[in-house]
């Protein structure tokens, strides 16, 4: 769907060149929700804005639905942009127009016949749940409502791709949840490809299928969200994950009894719903005492981790661990004395 090939971009600031993107290549599949995450300055917004050429890349190709975006003339570029919706961190709504007027703006630009505009506006406001605010001005709306208008406006021209530039970063956690749920819903119902830039791992976790982690203008890691969350390879991914409210065990507070090791089990999608623990207890006779745990719901699967204390004879404990490992669960011994 979107093929980014060897894209590079350098900003000139005060005589010094700042390499924002260095030879980035990645493929975004049709219909997926693709996340781009990184610390500030990693180049994630620059990459996103290269897709609709809000920011011109210096080199490389961006193939969108068969055409190389970087080679389009002004007129062709405008028609392409009508098929690529975009939402922004600060919503960017016209204060001089009502909610309806803001959505109508996209349709006017998209050259819709005047008679069809009001019907389409009503349809879009219905989709985002703002039908009752049609005649309000943006200054009368909350942040979440403003972003809903932004989404309605971005989708009005029936785009095949929606670009989201930190769309939830200015919202409180609860509103963020509802906006993400709306985006996920739209992705599922309309099959629209969503490319989402964020600096929050929580956003990636909630709705993305795949994620690319950017580090200093390069792709540090790319993969299924589950894999990146389970086994983050890049420093950035690990650092960003550390800010999430993960299952946290405090090593000092763990029970430390001789012969009773403390172990963390990491479950991935295929095993999180299996009764592995109870089977391990039944088949080996070891005792397993659960200390803490968490299950994350990812769009495609569940991942979880569990910290437990094992008790029993050495044989029983070793047997329980090897059974659990045989079930594709990763184990990490945290304390053993």
């Amino acid at each position: 769907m979107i093929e980014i090939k060897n894209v590079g971009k350098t900003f000139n600031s005060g005589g010094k060149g700042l390499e924002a993107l260095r030879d980035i290549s990645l493929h975004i599949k049709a219909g997926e929700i693709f996340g781009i995450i990184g610390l500030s300055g990693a180049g994630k917004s620059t990459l996103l804005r290269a897709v609709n050429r809000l920011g011109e890349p210096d080199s490389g190709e961006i193939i969108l639905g068969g055409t190389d975006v970087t080679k389009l003339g002004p007129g062709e570029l405008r028609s392409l942009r009508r098929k690529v919706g975009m939402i922004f961190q600060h919503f960017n709504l016209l204060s001089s127009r009502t909610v309806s007027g803001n959505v109508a703006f996209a349709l006017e630009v998209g050259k819709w016949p005047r008679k069809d505009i009001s019907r389409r506006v009503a349809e879009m406001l219905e989709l985002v749940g703002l039908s009752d605010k049609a005649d309000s001005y943006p200054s009368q709306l909350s942040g979440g409502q403003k972003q809903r208008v932004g989404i309605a406006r971005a989708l009005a021209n029936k785009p095949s791709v929606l670009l989201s530039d930190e769309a939830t970063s200015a919202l409180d956690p609860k509103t963020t949840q509802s906006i993400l749920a709306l985006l996920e819903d739209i992705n599922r119902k309309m099959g629209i490809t969503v490319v989402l830039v964020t600096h929050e791992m929580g956003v990636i976790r909630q709705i993305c299928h795949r994620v690319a982690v950017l580090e200093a203008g390069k792709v540090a890691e790319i993969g299924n969200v589950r894999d990146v969350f389970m086994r983050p390879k890049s420093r950035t991914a690990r650092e960003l994950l550390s800010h999430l409210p993960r299952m946290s065990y405090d090593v000092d507070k763990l029970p430390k009894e001789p012969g009773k090791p403390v172990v963390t089990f990491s479950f991935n999608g295929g095993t999180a719903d299996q009764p592995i623990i109870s089977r391990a207890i039944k088949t080996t006779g070891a005792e397993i005492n659960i200390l803490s745990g968490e299950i994350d719901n990812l769009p495609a699967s569940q991942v979880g981790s569990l910290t437990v204390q094992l008790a029993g004879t050495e044989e029983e404990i070793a047997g329980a661990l090897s059974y659990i490992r045989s079930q594709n669960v990763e184990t990490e011994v945290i304390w053993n004395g």
Partner: protein
Amino acid sequence: MDNLAELAGLLATPTWETLYMVFFSTLFATLMGFPLGIVLVVSEKDGILENEYLYRVLDGIVNVLRSFPFIILMIVLFPLSRFVVGTTIGTTASIVPLAIAAAPFVARVVESALKEVDHGLVEAAVSMGSSPKEIIFKVLVPEALPSLVLGETLTVINIIGYSAMAGAIGGGGLGDLAVRYGFHRFQTDVLIAAVIVIIVMVQAIQGAGNALARRVSH
């Protein structure tokens, strides 16, 4: 002057002349300055139709015109007034220098009002596939409307001030009246009356401008 009716009779024609001069000068200044302001905004660095050369030339012209003291500009423009109106004396002739003096002012007012529009809005419009024309007339101008109304108010008031000066060299109007009676004939009451009429005019225009600006901002 002891007769109030006589004073009113004396003021009527110059008041009318001032209104006439101010109205048409504002109209022509806006017709020239508004497009110029828009071109300045879109052609400047990082504008939607960036053109450094054009910007520098227009920017220079605006600065030069604004540097002229009005009274000098008026004399310099006598030949133009004669060409356009057929004479250099009178209210209609004064409209030419008044409009030309105010046009670069209007251009700057428009430029600064449009520059205040959040760049994010322009970006959003670009992302939707808007043409430069759509960005100017559907985003920049409507979004800047409250500032534009206040700027236009400022222009009208400035032109009232200039028109009094135009009066001093044969332009007619309230300024002319004040100079002739108040200064040359020591009839202070006529001078005061003329000034009061000007004050009332300025107050009314500022009040109307503020009210209109409030109405168009959301």
